[in-house]
């Protein structure tokens, strides 16, 4: 556990990808089996441990330390796991053996909640502050050390002689602690492929740098809309079907309506949407509707009816027994179209190709695209084979410009992690008409969204100072601000929502510019936002 704890600790401070790689490699070279397999599973988010409630962890801690001291400490540190790790009374370490990572995982996996809490208390006694922190992070399920599954697998590839693509292709067929895989990567025999329904790493795109557009020949590229759903891979054959998210996580269980329609043998790439066919036309619902489906591991019959799943296909990796990945996109597309034409399926359609004669025409199309379900454009090189990963120069995403609004900062809260001492989380609002207590018409501010990002470190410091000097009231950790500071916020889209007082919800709002100069009464009205509903 100690080695793994030190790894997590170092990773949490290491901002650079290469630095992280070096740390994980170093760990994988030195950690014993099966610990390192479990460590990989933890980094890849593939450990399924019973989640421990923060309230029970807290309870367990105040049984051992003065609750008042705990309160002050938590207030100061701002993170529950970290506070517990630091404040946990250290017993005589010599009489406690620190647990191994494999022991923690194997016993926690089988334990019920109550037993898990007992186990945790015993292990916490045997670890130092870093070890305790790592254990609590592990039990909380989310490590949040800025490591993707792909990065962890890259490090694994680096300690042996097997390429990342080969690892990724076999990975889904194995379970933690991946004994066979690790044996193979470190010089042993390659495990047999058990089936062909494993996840195949996706081909990914780069954001388009518009200044480079001139250097690209427009006839080398096809253009498609960038659909506002989630990227999925369908792998089907021999009566079985798997639906994978872009990271290779299997999500078949949440989409029975889709799965029951799959009777083919192919591996396809497309966008998962919520959409209905109305008179043969596919109408895509807002992302929110898909979000409701993604939130349910087992959707209700009503939800299946109201939010039907749909896949818009744009590529084919394998059809029948033919691996199309080495072929250029031009040919893969022909195969996909021919395959689809044989028997169109209602829950599937093809992502149409956009006709354009030059970049400026395409730019115009992009600028006009405001309909729901479109995030921008994808440009794909006709000659590109299907290459796993984010390879430069083949696929580009060209997102549409964000929408903006001027809103007034209304509430502030301190951030977490790096920002735990700064007021960095803001609720902002716009004006709407009201009748005041005396019956006179006036205007009131109503919250329309929350934003945590988009400012520089320098601006964050200024915002923090402004918050401290302009607080009119406090509710626990929330500061109510004088309605005096306007900021321009960017967001991707607006939707109706019953959850917010304003009846609106913004998608991915973030700061664009702080308008120190702009009086609050000149901020936008809720009505203005409503006109932007897609």
């Amino acid at each position, binding site marked *: 556990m100690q080695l793994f704890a030190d790894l997590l600790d170092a990773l*949490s401070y290491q901002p650079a990808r290469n630095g992280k790689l070096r740390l994980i490699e170093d760990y994988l070279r030195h950690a014993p089996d099966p610990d390192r397999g479990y460590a990989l599973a933890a980094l890849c988010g593939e450990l399924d441990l019973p989640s421990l409630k923060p309230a029970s962890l807290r309870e367990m801690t105040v049984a051992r330390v*003065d609750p*008042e001291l705990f309160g002050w400490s938590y207030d100061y540190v701002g993170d529950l796991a970290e506070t517990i790790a*630091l*404040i946990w009374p250290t017993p005589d370490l010599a009489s406690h053996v620190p647990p191994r990572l494999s022991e923690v995982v194997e016993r926690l996996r089988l334990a019920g909640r109550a037993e898990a809490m007992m186990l945790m208390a015993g292990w916490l006694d045997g670890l130092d502050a870093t070890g305790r922190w790592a254990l609590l992070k592990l039990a909380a399920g989310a490590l949040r050390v800025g490591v993707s599954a792909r990065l962890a697998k890259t490090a694994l590839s680096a300690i042996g002689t097997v390429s990342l693509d080969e690892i990724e292709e076999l990975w889904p067929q194995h379970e933690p602690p991946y004994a066979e895989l690790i044996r193979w990567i470190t010089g042993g025999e390659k495990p047999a492929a058990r089936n062909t329904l494993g996840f195949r790493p996706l081909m990914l795109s780069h954001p388009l740098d518009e200044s480079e557009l001139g250097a690209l020949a427009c006839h080398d590229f096809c253009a498609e809309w960038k659909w506002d759903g989630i990227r999925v891979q369908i792998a089907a054959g021999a009566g079985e079907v798997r639906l994978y998210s872009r990271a290779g996580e299997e999500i078949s269980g949440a989409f029975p309506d889709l799965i029951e329609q799959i009777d083919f043998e192919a591996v396809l790439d497309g966008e998962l949407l919520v959409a209905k066919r109305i008179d043969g036309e596919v109408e895509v619902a807002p992302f929110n509707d898909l979000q409701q489906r993604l939130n349910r591991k087992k959707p209700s019959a009503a939800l299946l009816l109201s939010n039907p799943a749909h896949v818009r296909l744009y590529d084919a990796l394998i059809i029948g027994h033919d691996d199309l990945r080495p072929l250029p996109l031009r040919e893969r597309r022909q195969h996909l179209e021919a395959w689809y034409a044989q028997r169109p399926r209602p829950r599937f359609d093809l992502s149409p190709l956009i006709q354009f004669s030059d970049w400026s025409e395409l730019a115009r199309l992009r600028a006009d695209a405001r309909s729901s379900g479109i995030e921008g454009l994808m440009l794909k090189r006709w000659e590109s084979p299907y290459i796993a990963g984010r390879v430069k120069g083949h696929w580009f995403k060209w997102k549409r410009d964000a929408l903006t609004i001027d809103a007034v900062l209304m509430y502030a809260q301190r951030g977490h992690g790096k920002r735990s*001492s700064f007021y960095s989380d803001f609720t902002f609002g716009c004006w709407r008409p009201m009748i005041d207590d005396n019956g006179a018409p006036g205007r009131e501010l109503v919250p329309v969204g929350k934003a945590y990002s988009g400012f520089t470190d320098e601006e964050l410091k200024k915002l923090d100072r402004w918050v401290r000097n302009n607080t009119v009231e406090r509710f626990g950790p929330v500061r109510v601000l004088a309605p005096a500071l306007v900021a321009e916020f960017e967001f991707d889209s607006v939707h109706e929502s019953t959850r917010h007082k304003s009846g609106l919800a913004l998608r991915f709002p973030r700061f664009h510019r702080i308008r120190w100069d702009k009086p609050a009464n000149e901020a936008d009205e809720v009505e203005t936002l409503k006109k932007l509903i897609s």
Partner: protein
Amino acid sequence: MPLHPQHWLKAIPGGLYCEPGGFFIDPSRPVDRAIVTHGHGDHARSGHGKVAATADTLAIMEVRYGEGFAREAQALAYGERLAMGDVTIMLEPAGHILGSAQVVLEHGGSRAVISGDYKRRFDPTCPPFTPVKCDVFITEATFGLPVFHHPPDKGEIAKVLHARDLFPDRNVLIGAYSLGKCQRVIALLRRAGYDRPIYLHGAHQALCDLYVARGVALGTLLPATVADTAKIRNEIVLCPPSAIGEVWSRRLGDPVPAVASGWMRIRARARQARAELPLVISDHADWDELLQTARDVDAPEVWVTHGREEALIHAIEQSGRKARALSLVGYEDEE
């Protein structure tokens, strides 16, 4: 009936004032007479009339402020007694940095000890804290929360050496305050067997020279601010914490930024300091040491100053002693 220190030792604007002696302790603005516990800028200021402190502290003040830092300076050895008015003054080691002292005051049959900043663990650059029994103990509370447990220095120094091995193409750049922390980190590296030259930011040079001149061995020290920095590769370099992430550090390529401070125990603080390698090395007492010290000096009453007072007061009261906050302004949390 002994005269309780609350009648002759008061927090007034300017700092802690001893009326019958007519002097301040660590005053925050120029005063006529001052006792200075140690050389850190928020405790030792220039421009006083008469200053009493240890010879090391006076030497530090001279390096920082120049020769005329006070009208008159009086060196006191640890344990030496000095009378001022009706008050007897004595300095005892505080274990914080070179020259750091607690101030022991006796008046009217009672004794008060002002800890200044202090720590309880071993430091190769200064003598250890000596507990003095007293009626009132005035303690700092920089790390006055039970989340602050400084780990053994050895493990933190091992992290530095491991980082050097792990990143053979990078320097390890340690941000450390130039007075005390810098020299302690160097001395600890030497004790861990590290004998390569250690490179210094210009701001560290003068005080390292002073430490060496006053008998603290630091091994070979070389300036990092030189024209040809290409030769400095996979070395250990020390700079002030503020220089990390500044233009200055670019000369070192892509160093592993480390910061040596008790605050590094808190992850958010470490990230704010941009530390890739946070080193929990502190010159202040941690929570257990603060409580241990209250027991060791066995004072029936403890006054708590600069830091997180409320938690420490609560814990001291739980142990059956009186405790209260002594509001002194002007001292910083930095270390």
